[in-house]
């Protein structure tokens, strides 16, 4: 389809090779089942394919068509036009990992900018060039902490209030190792303040992982937890919604050793769950233990400042079976999206969007809980997401609201049997006051039948 060859080209090339037909090039393959007839639909032209695809897409209801208050780890934010315009530059998206720095300075300098902005946003000293998503980034943090202590501190405390997908991914990643996970299954404690984890910290713990905000939207100050962890020699990792850091104190300020997060809110489309962006930042002293790629500053032989992939000796292709992670391809283009987004919004814009989310979410929480039958589950501070306890199962609330083209939020009963009446509601700058008022009105008309 995209091959430029004419039959004459093919014949000329075969002649040069010295074989009669292309089939002859496959003679060393097992004869049985060679050239199978694949049962696939016949190929289409671009025009027909797009028409068909648009038909498939039409069967989806988008966040433009629905009034959505769904978050739970992926958020509907406005993406400025500049972001996609830069992403569509062929020089960026059709290049690969910048192994040849002389002809890859665009990608390398962009990674350097990304590292700088992620470090600044999280209040950490170094950031890598990305992981697959928020879940795999935190799984790599667990892995890294284990290796920092060379396996001598085998336990990792995971707050059960982390995103359920993160907890599940960490379990899969650590299943083959000697790492022991602690506290992650104590869902009876999810309504407690995170201080309940403090007594669990001792010298067998390498890492404690908490959310900021946590899965339920709550924002806690972890200064005391970081102090207790450090006193016993353990590290503390914080998973963040990076957009909230436009407003909130960065984890570096309260002593976090590792900050991971889901970078999707920074200019990446919802796209049914991916590709997103795994953020990973840490302190300078752990840079050699960190997985993933790193761009570092140097000079070329003409004396020009330039960037290269550095500390590659940590990586899978050099250390082979002694590497602590196998990551190779990561989320380059998504990191570029986040870089452009953060650059464009800059110092003032990121603060502004974070404040919009904060104020709109608090307005929504206030008016929703003014309706009889709905109350806030927690009194803890929150950013743009909160839990509403409803007078009916959340599943039923969602069902009734969907009839009015509203997605009320995430039904927590899917993961926590005790929270079957609880909705996790997210509000962003995309939700106008009118939207929020419509939502409240719809909630007030939910019927118990």
């Amino acid at each position, binding site marked *: *389809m*995209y*091959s*430029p*060859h004419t039959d004459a080209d093919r014949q000329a090339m075969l002649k040069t*090779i010295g*074989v009669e037909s292309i089939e002859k090039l496959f003679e060393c393959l*097992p004869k049985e089942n060679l*050239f*199978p007839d694949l049962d696939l639909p016949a*190929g*289409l032209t671009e025009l027909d*394919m797009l028409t068909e*695809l648009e038909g498939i897409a039409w069967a*989806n209801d*988008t*966040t433009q068509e629905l009034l959505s208050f769904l978050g739970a780890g992926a958020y509907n934010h406005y993406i*400025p036009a*500049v972001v996609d315009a*830069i992403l569509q530059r062929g*020089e960026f*998206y*059709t*290049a690969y990992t910048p192994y040849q720095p002389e*002809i890859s300075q*665009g990608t390398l300098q*962009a990674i350097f900018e990304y590292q700088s902005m992620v470090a*600044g946003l999280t209040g950490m000293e170094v950031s890598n060039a990305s992981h697959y998503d928020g879940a795999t980034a935190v799984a790599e943090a667990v892995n890294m902490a284990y290796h920092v202590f060379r396996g001598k501190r085998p336990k990792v405390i995971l707050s059960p209030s982390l995103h359920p997908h993160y907890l599940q*991914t960490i379990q899969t*990643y650590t299943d*083959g*190792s000697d790492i022991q996970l602690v506290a992650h299954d104590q869902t009876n404690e999810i309504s407690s303040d995170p201080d309940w984890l403090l007594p669990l910290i001792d010298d067998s713990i390498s890492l404690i992982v908490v959310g900021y905000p946590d899965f339920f939207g709550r924002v806690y100050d972890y200064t005391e937890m970081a102090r207790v962890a450090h006193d016993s020699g353990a590290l503390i990792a914080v998973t963040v919604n990076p957009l909230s850091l436009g407003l909130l*104190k960065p984890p570096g300020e309260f002593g976090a050793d590792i900050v991971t997060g889901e970078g999707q809110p920074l200019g990446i*489309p*919802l796209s*049914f*769950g*991916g590709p997103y962006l795994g953020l990973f930042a840490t302190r300078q002293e752990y840079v050699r233990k960190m997985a993933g790629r790193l761009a570092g500053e*140097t000079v*070329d032989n*003409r004396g*020009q400042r330039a960037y*290269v992939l550095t500390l590659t000796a940590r990586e899978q*292709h050099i250390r082979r*079976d002694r*590497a*602590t992670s196998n*990551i*190779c*391809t*990561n*989320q*380059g*283009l998504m990191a570029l999206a986040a870089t452009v987004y953060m*650059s464009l919004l800059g110092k003032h*814009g990121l603060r502004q969007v974070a404040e*919009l989310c904060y104020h709109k979410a608090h*307005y929504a929480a206030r008016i929703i809980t003014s309706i009889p039958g709905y109350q806030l589950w927690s009194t803890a*501070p929150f950013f743009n997401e909160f839990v509403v306890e409803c007078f009916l199962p959340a599943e039923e609330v969602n069902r009734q609201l*969907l009839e009015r083209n509203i997605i009320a939020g995430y039904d927590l009963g899917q993961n926590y049997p005790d929270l079957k009446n609880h909705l996790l509601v997210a509000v962003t700058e995309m939700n106008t006051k009118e939207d929020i008022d419509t939502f409240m009105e719809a909630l007030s008309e939910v019927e118990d039948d």
Partner: protein
Amino acid sequence: MTEKLMCELSIPGRVGFRFPDIDVPPSPLPERMIRDDLPLPELSEIDIVRYFTRLSQLNHGVDTGFYPLGSCTMKYNPKVNEKAARIPGFSKIHPLQPIETVQGALALMYQLQEWLKEIGGFAGVSLQPAAGAHGELTGVLIIRAFHRTQGDLSRTKILIPDSAHGTNPATSAMSGMQVVEIRSDKRGNVDIEALKGECDDTLAGLMLTNPNTLGLFDENVEEVIQLVHEAGGLVYGDGANMNALLGISRPGDLGFDVLHYNLHKTFSTPHGGGGPGSGPVGVADHLVEFLPHPIVDVIEEGDELIPPLFGFVTPMKSIGRVKSFHGHFGVIVRAYSYIRIHGADGLRNVSEDAVLNANYLLALLRDTYHVPYDRDCMHEFVMEGRWPDIPEVHALDISKRLMDFGFHPPTNYFPLIVPESLMIEPTETESKETLDAFADTLKRIAEEANSDSTILTTAPHKTPFGRMDEVKAAKELVLCCVPDYAKHAGE
């Protein structure tokens, strides 16, 4: 040519983007939780657009020129794929929406699972893994889980041929396995005797890249697989080189138990400067129950009037979840578009032309460069970037010199079993003229090596940047501009 960093360009008070004013009554902020400063640049929209456009121009991409990076399959990335992934019905749906509102997305994922099963000859596919190495991890965890279920806790040994992909050893180690390397024989196949010596009751499996990183199809692949199976092990296929096999030979038919596909190689989704990729995993019948969740399936059969209802299911003995949500959907849409445009005949043509192009380049170059395993190759081949009588010239110098002629270098110094290796994968989307020009350039470089080797050892000359001081980068370790941010911004 150095481009200033944004922290150096930043002007206090400059704004690049404005949001609407707040339309709700504000709430009090939790003062002690609020940050003081946000160390981000202050630039206007045009500053940002020009900055990133100029940066992009410092890159070589498939859209700018030939990119024969071995084992990376740098084929043309069709523009329509980009359009497809940006259809709002795909780009503006939330991963946790009720399934009734995302039936199109689920139908597309289901269809791609079915197509990948058919293309690879497998009974089940998970689209969840995010990249090739992530697919490998998933595959090895599946192998591990399979043996555990059989009560075979002692099977912890993974065999990896020395011609396998670089990520394989790290993957196995990450899964808690012990890695044993198996040498290649003189024809570039897995050494059968070496393999036999490791086939015991501690064997968990073999990770086989086929075609391997020499670009060669293992001539004994059926025997290799049979030996591993007889010893109770499973065979993992690294599908990074599937671009040679579409409609030619199905790994599942050959006896592979697990295989990962690289949608960003074989199925034309862009490499993005280092991702995002997508590494779906296909498995044979006996491993379907171990796939990571979620899998898309029909949860209510349809009839003449009502279409089937698609939803997510969790296989019975699933290894668990390997990432958030359901895989790289945006990449999945692009791969779907690619397969839909090609159909069965088109896909076979892809692999035929990929193999034709590689053999053509090999034929043009084998008299000038030493090809240590010289037989018909698949989609790529490996030659030595050195000549015994010119010891000062290395594969690296040849690579750097290629840049002066507008070519991206091949993969160099991999595979490790060929000294000074240059691994060349032209892909099917390159024309005869491009291949001729590339071969002519490599021949010219060989002449330069003879006549004036310093032009090679000091290359590149015509690129915006010259060779880098890698030692300085690793020693000084300047990884971001943030510590000096305030200073720079205030200047």
